[in-house]
Every structure is written in C-alpha cells, then in structure tokens.
C-alpha cells in the first residue's frame, strides 16, 4: 500500500536547487551495490546507477538500459538489446561488454556479493556474454523467473567498466567520486564518511526507464544525502527544514512531525516483513544438549498463538501499522495469499493446550512451564537494529508469553557474531532472531529462508517438499500458477511456523511541501530524477 504523494507532482518543474535527504545509516564501506546487501546502499545510490530493466510496484517489467529482451522457451536464455546512446559519468560508453564486466564483477569471488549474486539465481546463473556490440545474452542452468526483477534493482546497477577495472574491491566498497561511477541522473561528487554523500546532476542524462515521468536530465542541481543515525535527529532535521526529505521514520516519528507539515509517502516493501526467525535446531553442533525448544512444532505454534500481535503492534508503533499475517508482504507481486489472514489470531487457551500436549505441564515458582527440570525458555538474539519501538514490541510479546508460561529473554548484544558462527561454521546459538528481507520477488525472500540450502535459512528448515515447491515456482512463467505455489508455502509456514511475521516493513519518506515530482520504487525508495523544489 502506498499513500500520500503521487509520483507526478503538481505545477511546472523548476530547474535548480540542491535537495537534502536524511537517511539513518552511514554508508561506510557500503558503496558497492554489487557487494552490499543493505537497504541504505540502494536508497543512496538509486539515482547513481541505472539498471537494465525497471519494475513497477505491481511487478510489470519495463525497459531501461535494455530497450528490449527475449526469453527462450525453456527460460534458460535471456537476450537483451541494449541502448546505444548511454554514457557513464566518466564518459565511457555503455555497451554489452560493459554489462558483461558488471556481471563478471558481481560473481567474482573477491566481490563477496552478499545479495545480488544470489538474487540473480546464484549457481543457476551460468554466465553473461556479449553477443553483439549492444546485445547481451544471459544464460541460466535452470529456469529462474525472478531474474528480471533482480536485474531491476540497484544492486544490479551498471558500473562504468573503467571504474570497475581501475579500483580494488576495497576502494569500490569505500566508494567516492571517480569510484562510484554509474550512468544515472546524478553522479557522486563527494563523500564525507559518516556525514554525507553529495550527488550532482548528470546534465547529459537522457535514458530513464519509461516508468519515469521525466525524460531528460534531472531538474535538481544536486542531492545531498545526510546520515543522521538518530531518529530524533532526522525528525528534527525535517522539522527545522535542515533537510527537505527524510526516510527511515517510524509511525510515531511521523505523528511527531505531523502529517500536515509534510508530504508523507508510506510504502510497504515487498518481501519478508520484519519477522521472528525461529530456530528449529538449536545446538545443531552440540546434539548432546538436545534440540532447542522449537524443535517441537507445538511449541512453535504455541508461540505463534500466544502473542497478541494486534495489541503489541498497536502499542509499539501507534495506529499507523497493520499487523502482518503472512511471511510475504501484501505488496509482493504475484505471491501474497490473503487466505492466511486471521488464521493465527491471538489464542492463549489453544497455545496453553498445545504446550500441555507437548509435555510442558509443570510450572515453577515464577509461573513458567517446566519439563524435565528445564524451564521453557527462549533466547531472542537481537539482530542489527534495536530501535526502541521494536524493543517495546518485543517487551509486549514477553509479557504475552509469560501469561502462557514461556520465558522469553531478549538479548541486545553486540557480540552476536559469536553466536552465529565459530570457525566459519554456522552455529545459530539462539532460539529466535529477527530481521526483514525486502525483495521484489517472492522467491528472493522465500528461497533464502526456507530452502534447505538457503543462505538465510536460519530456521534450519530442511523440507524436500518446500524445496520442490520453490523450484516449481521459479520454473513457471505463469503468474497465477506461481501465486498458487507461493500460497501453499505461506500456509505451510502458518502450520509449521518457521518464521513469525511481526510487523510490516514500511518505508516512510517525508518531504517538505516544496518538494515535487519525487517518484518511488517498489520499496518506497525515492527517485529524484524527476524531482524539483518549488520556490514557494
């Protein structure tokens, strides 16, 4: 769902001016989209790198640097016709060779791509080849439907081949003017680490995707992206007019700013909402310690039913957010299954029954359930960011679970790495962790988490049926069939509870009223190519 500003803007565009844009994360070491998996990279660099194709929020694919393409019958070969009028910021022309250089970089081991390589199919991606000056052929070893949507992301943005060749991977990650070189409407002018990234207009820009309302160069002279880690700081910056646009705001922050003062764009990103990832196999390396409490599906179900998510989300985030029901965001194209809505509403009685059934019948002095002398205890290891709203949400869940005799402990530790891997082996020494995973394709979100080989499969799900379903889904090109398969997986999760979605991954962007013409991608990230600032 998106509300607020529509893309077009009102009145005549005005040229000139620099727009400042506040984001939460620092970009230190995150300026290479090919290696980074962080949202901030994409948020900051969308206007620097162009992609081969563009995708609308409903999943339609449009030409961008590729003017057209064909897909072979078997879905294993994609042939792109590339535009021939595109030049990078450093003057290098864009052609098939340049595109190949980019794919080579994405899959080079030293790039250590954390996201896009896998989004492009991982091992299925058999290679990219220049089959003409401006013809690019991508071959897959198995069909992989989400390829196009992956190609549309900033993470698959096209670097100038000269920039790739001329810099080490370290330099690319660190980024900066002359290093982070794409072909987008803005180029990187200056990077003040920890403080801001300054972009200037690319005056020659004439190759936006056909989704874009502005056919030519940007109206703005430049965009300054400021890193303001504290939400209060971003709120203050917007209120005081220090920055015209800000993102990464919680619903409460929006209330604070006041809806009248600014234009607000709310986007629920496609992919996995912010969720609790339940570890089915804690102590995998130490079987002698026994499986974790979540090895038992009844305990997982009890967890799911024991939390009063409606109340918790409401209290933690204010009225702005709807609780999620599915592990896929409703905005995920061709995948969301409305049928799961209401299937696991708060039901403490049922939860207690399940726990009793699972043998957790005794209670200790503090009222927690006990079995074989062990308390029913769940470690929740905080993932990256524990802003206080999320903490509050967890605090409410802790109370809910206490009611049914489960002890939940939320650990905000900075030593989480130790709990994740030792000597290069994944350990997962926790019962729950939490994160979200935005992805335009359902496969991107689900395969990584639920397939036996999935790189985010922290639940340690190993279900051949699911693996099969996932493969089937990417093999078909029929959207309806795809949606049906994904519906099965979503229902499967409600039953088996690998992941409990907690709250929607909503991106909020606020803009001063003087800002016009900003467009947003499926993730709600602003695109400033068509933006301008009214003098009023």
């Amino acid at each position, binding site marked *: 769902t998106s509300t607020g500003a529509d893309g077009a803007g009102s009145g005549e565009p005005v040229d000139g001016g620099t727009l400042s844009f*506040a984001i939460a994360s620092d970009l*230190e*070491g995150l300026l290479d989209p090919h290696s980074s*998996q962080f949202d901030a990279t994409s948020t900051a660099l969308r206007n620097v790198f162009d992609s081969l194709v563009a995708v609308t929020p409903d999943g339609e694919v449009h030409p961008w640097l590729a003017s057209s393409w064909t897909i072979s019958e078997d879905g294993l070969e994609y042939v792109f016709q590339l535009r021939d009028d595109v030049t990078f910021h450093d003057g290098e022309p864009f052609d098939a060779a340049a595109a190949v250089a980019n794919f080579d970089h994405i899959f080079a*081991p*030293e790039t*250590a*791509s*954390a996201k896009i*390589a*896998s989004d492009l199919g*991982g091992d299925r991606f058999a290679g990219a080849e220049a089959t003409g000056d401006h013809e690019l052929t991508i071959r897959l070893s198995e069909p992989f439907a989400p390829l196009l949507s992956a190609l549309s992301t900033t993470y698959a943005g096209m670097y100038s081949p000269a920039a790739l060749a001329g810099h080490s*991977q*370290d*330099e690319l*990650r*660190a980024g900066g003017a002359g290093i982070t070189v794409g072909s987008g409407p803005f180029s990187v002018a200056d990077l*003040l*680490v*920890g*403080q801001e990234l300054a972009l200037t207009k690319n005056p020659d820009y004439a190759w936006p995707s056909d989704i874009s309302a502005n056919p030519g160069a940007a109206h703005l002279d430049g965009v300054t992206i*400021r*890193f*303001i*880690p*504290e939400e*209060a*700081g971003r*709120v*203050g*910056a917007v*209120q*005081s007019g*220090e920055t015209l646009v800000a993102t990464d705001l919680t619903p409460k922050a929006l209330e604070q700013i006041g809806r009248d003062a600014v234009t607000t764009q709310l986007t629920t990103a496609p992919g996995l909402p912010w969720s609790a990832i339940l570890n089915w196999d804690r102590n995998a390396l130490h079987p002698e310690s026994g499986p974790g409490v979540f090895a038992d599906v009844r305990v997982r179900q009890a967890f799911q039913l024991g939390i009063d998510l409606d109340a918790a989300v409401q209290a933690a985030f204010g009225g702005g957010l709807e609780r999620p029901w599915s592990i896929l965001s409703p905005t995920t194209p061709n995948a969301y299954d409305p049928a799961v809505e209401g299937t696991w509403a708060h039901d403490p009685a049922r939860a207690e029954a399940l726990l009793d059934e699972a043998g957790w019948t005794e209670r200790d002095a503090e009222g927690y359930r006990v079995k074989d002398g062990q308390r029913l205890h769940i470690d929740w290891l905080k993932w990256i960011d524990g802003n206080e709203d999320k903490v509050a949400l967890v605090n409410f869940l802790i109370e809910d679970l206490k009611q049914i005799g489960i002890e939940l402990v939320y650990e905000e530790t*900075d*030593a989480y*790495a*130790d709990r*994740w*891997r030792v000597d*290069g082996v*994944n350990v997962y020494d926790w019962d729950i962790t939490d994160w979200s995973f935005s992805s335009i394709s359902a496969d991107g979100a689900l395969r990584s988490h639920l397939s036996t080989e999935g*790189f*985010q499969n922290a639940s340690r799900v190993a279900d051949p049926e699911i693996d099969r379903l996932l493969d089937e889904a990417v093999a078909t090109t029929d959207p309806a069939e795809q949606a049906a398969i994904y519906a099965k997986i979503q229902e499967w999760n409600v039953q088996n509870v690998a992941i409990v979605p907690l709250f929607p991954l909503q991106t909020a962007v606020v803009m001063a009223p003087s800002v016009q013409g900003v467009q947003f991608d499926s993730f709600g990230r602003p695109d400033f190519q068509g933006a301008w600032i009214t003098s009023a």
Partner: protein
Amino acid sequence: MRDVWVVRALGRWISQGALVMWGAVTLAFLLLKAVPGDPVDTILGTSASVPAETRQALRTDLGLDLPLWQQYLAALVRPLTGDFGVSYRARRPVLDLLASHALPTLWLTLAALALALGLAYLLAAVTRRGVSRRVADVVELVAISSPTFWIALALAQWFAYRLKWLPVTGGNEATRLILPAIALAIPMAGYFAQLLRDGLDRAEREPFAETARARGLSRGGLFARHTLRHSSASLLTVVAFSLGGLLGGTVLVENVFARQGLGRVTLDAIINRDLPVVLAVTMLSALVFVVVNALVDLIAMFVDPRLRTIEGRRRSVREAAETVDPVRTAAA
C-alpha cells in the same frame, strides 16, 4: 640560562613522548588481539554465501595469518613510514579516514575548550564573594555532575527541536558546532571555574597578595596583576589532563548530534575490531596527549618561572596533585 631549560624540557618531552606512544600502541594492540572474533567476519559478514577461500584470501591480504610478533612489529614500524594500513570496515586507508574525521573533532574539542575556559574565567571573576558565589558554587557543582550526553540531549531537545534556533545535526559550520561544544563545555566549565576560584582564594591568602594590597592595589588590580596568573598557572595542568576526558566526551556528543568525528570512528572501530583504525586512533590520541602536555608544560613554564627548575617542577607537581581532583578532571 633560559635556553637551557627549554632544551632540557625538549629532551624530556621527546623521550617521554616516544615512551608514551610506544606504550599506547602496544596496549592497544594487545587489547585488540584479545578480542574474540575474526575481523574477517566483520568485513565479509557472517553470511554463509561467502566461500571460505575468499575469507582466507582476505586474511592473508590483511596480514592476519602472520605470527603475532610480526603483526606487532608491523603495527609499530609501519606508522613510521606513514602507512597506517586500511580500515577493515570502511575499506579505506586509515589515514584518509582519520584525516576526514580528525578535523571536525579537533574543532569541536577546541571550541568546547575555549568555551569552557571563557565561561570559567567569567564565572570565577564575577562571583568572587557573597550570594553570587554561593549560587555559582551550586550551579557549578550541578554542571560538573551532569553527564555530557544528558546535557547534549537536553540542549538538542530545547535549542534544536523545540526552539529551532540551531541545527540538529553535525557538520562543520559554526552554527552546527555550537550545541555540541556547549554540551561538552558545561561540565568542564564548572570544574574549571571551581579550580580557578579555589586558586584565586589561595593566591589571595598568600603573603604576596597582602603585600600587594598594602601597596594600595585594589581588588580588581590584585585579580588582574597577581591572583589571575596564579590560578591560571594551576589550571593549566588540569586543562591538559582534561583533554582525555574531552576526547572521551566527544564519543557521546558526536553520537547524540550525529556529528562526523573521531569519537564515532573510534567507537565503531572498537566495536568492529577494526584494528588498524583503533591503533591509529590510539596513536593519535597519545600524540595529542604528548603534544598538549608539552605545550601546557611550556606555557606553564612561561607563566611560572619557578617551574623552570627541577625542584620547582617537583614541588608544583606535588602541589597540583594535592589540590587538583584528578578524577573529576578525567571525567569532566
């Protein structure tokens, strides 16, 4: 005669400075090596999608598979050639990183110091006796006792968010410096003011003050010509000591005001076990410590000729240690 003490002082600074730097680097190195966890994980993330070869290659690249003593030697020797290595996390030469971060912190620290000194002198001079003094005593005590980050929050809240007089976020323009500098300066100003006043009191009770008054000097004259210098002389050493506390304080203030700076870089580096950065920051802060102490030493010797002899120094160090409350100094 004058030359001799300058030369002697120079020798002392260089030898002690080198020692302090060496010790600091060694300590930082040991500490960081004691940290569990692999910096390679920090760099590549813990995702299983990164192949082991890549990790190994990186480890070799960073020199992490060398024996410890070789790594230590490198940490000691390489900086001498201007090579501070590459930050594990930011993937940039450490020198670059520090260059872009040190200046904002320097400005912040200097501004805070100047502000604190200015405020302290004003307070100490104006509130010598009577009710104003008693009020000032209480205000200063509260100022000293207030945690920097709390002051920073309160200031940001009022002057940036509510009143919108000043910008919220960091940067190097003067207006963006004001709030962070004030936040850092307030506890220090309170402390300095108390020290100054104490010094003034003490100086006023010295026989020379009585002599001066007996010559017909007014209180103001006594302040300007005699007691001010005396209290300043003892304040100086404290200022040098406060620098450490100040640097520590920047971590918090930069955090609250989203300022770019050494404090945040250090915090991040420590959390991420970014050894090259930590080492460089350590060296930098030790260097600052050494240089500032030398400077303060020099100024003190100009202000107070008694310090130019060894005996005089001994005595004054003793006196300073007796009068100054160094705990507070460090935490100011």
